[in-house]
């Protein structure tokens, strides 16, 4: 489809997923490339995770006599992390709604802060998990299997850390510049990343934790 011919026809949802809504039509128009570009980046990132998942699966047998999933994983902790991350996606959704339908900065900031707190809580539980794995001898240098685990799961954690830093930076931008177009598209893109990380985590939870314990 040509952007030139159809530009006038296209309204408020030229990219799938979240959008700024009719209240911000012009900003969306000028910033559309940014959001589209971010989607494309997400596709590339997804390949990264996909390959690590595939590598993980091929390394399942490579425990080399070391501890395996059954000795190392605790379903309870993984489940808590899953719930935290799912809830954080909902709260980010609330933030997006606040951005889309109201020019209500306070509400938006509150939801973003709740999301940030949940993100940090997730990281806390994840690190606690790694710590207990280390205590049980589950270090990456122990076996190929553990190496594969520690190349996949912490990469997700690093992404979440990056997303949290970005969120803080956006809050800072909002404090300096107010709720202007770059902040809005920033929130929009961060939302995509946040939900994406949620989906990746679902994959990790099902494949690594549930699959490993079943």
């Amino acid at each position, binding site marked *: 489809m040509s952007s030139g011919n159809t530009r006038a026809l296209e309204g408020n949802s030229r990219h799938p997923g979240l959008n700024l809504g009719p209240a911000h039509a012009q900003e969306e128009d000028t910033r559309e490339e940014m959001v589209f570009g971010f989607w494309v980046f997400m596709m590339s990132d997804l390949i990264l995770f996909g390959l690590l998942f595939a590598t993980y699966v091929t390394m399942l047998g490579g425990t080399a006599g*070391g501890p395996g999933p059954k000795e190392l994983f605790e379903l309870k902790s993984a489940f808590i992390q899953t719930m935290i991350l799912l809830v954080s996606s909902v709260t980010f959704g609330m933030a997006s709604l606040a951005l889309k339908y109201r020019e209500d900065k306070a509400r938006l900031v509150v939801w973003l802060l709740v999301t940030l707190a949940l993100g940090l809580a997730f990281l806390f539980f994840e690190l606690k998990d790694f710590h207990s794995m280390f205590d049980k*001898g589950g*270090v990456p*240098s*122990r076996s190929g299997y553990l190496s594969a685990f520690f190349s996949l799961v912490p990469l997700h954690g690093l992404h979440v850390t990056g997303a949290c830093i970005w969120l803080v930076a956006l809050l800072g931008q909002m404090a300096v510049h107010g709720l202007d177009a770059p902040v809005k598209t920033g929130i929009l893109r961060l939302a995509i990343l946040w939900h994406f990380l949620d989906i990746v985590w679902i994959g990790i939870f099902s494949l690594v934790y549930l699959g490993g314990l079943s």
Partner: protein
Amino acid sequence: MSVKGRTGYFLRQGGRCALHLFPVLLPLVALSGCGADMPGFMNPQGQVAEAQRYHFWVVIALVMIVVIPVIIQTPLILWRYRYRGHAVYRPKWYMSRWLDIVMWAVPILIVAILSVYVWRQTHELDPYRPIAGDKPPLEIQVVGYDWKWLFIYPDQGIATMGQLVIPVDRPIAFSLTSATVLQSFFIPALGSQIDVMNRMVTRLHLKADHPGRFEGKNMQYNGEGFHRQRFITRAVDDDAFDDFVQRTREQGQPLNQSAYKIIAQKGDNRDAARALGLDTHDSDAVIRFAPVPDGLFHIIMEGSPIDWSTTDVSPPQLGATRTSVIQTPPDDDTSSASDPQSSSHQHKEAQP
């Protein structure tokens, strides 16, 4: 001009100017001419290599159907439609259904034929597939080191380095592994190469049709001694092979712990021979081992420690010439020698 006419012209040119082919195909001409004294599979000594040479030419012949028109017609078109020429000029002509059909159909047809051919030949020449023959296959186990090969004859209880001796007309079943990095085992005159990997076994089946001496080599770069990782394959008749086995049993030195340590160190075959105290003036620097511990190949493959106490081997006959890069280990050093992996490289401790 009609559509058919255009197409006809384009296709008709094929026969005219074989002269243009000459410079480009020169290497091919040279190749087919001097195949007789070339090393490698152009001068095959086994049925696998012979089949491979045949496939090579079949594929070339089929692909030439697409290639030759390009090589002949490009210069013709260049000349006929040159800027100062008077040929017809149609700057807006951009499509002909007939030409499109022809130029999709011909490659599709060729690839279809090739596909059937490739499917069948790949299965027929699968290196894992045993070669049929009147005689039972001879088992040989190959271990790759930096930068030499160890050939174990499990049924005969002997092993050699620097020279692989095989009986003519008898299928050989190789099992291969590497005690170090990735390598590729290859005897071009006989047939396929196969990768050799640590902790894994690959298989290869070959057969020599004629007696002779053929080059064998490693094809996968593995460090500074890579180009020296070679051996001679000697294909001999059955009597000579039995002689070889007998002689090796009598003259070989036992493959014991200290001999193994020397093999596993970095260095080529000649270095190892020298470190084992052998005369290296012999051009191939052949090393013969007998007896060889049972199941050595699988122990190496699994990377588990070799239990030398159960193997009934006496100390090697160490000679005086130890001036090579390989340091002969002290014979009493038993504590660190249990793992064949540990001797050659900086080794990480296996247990955390």
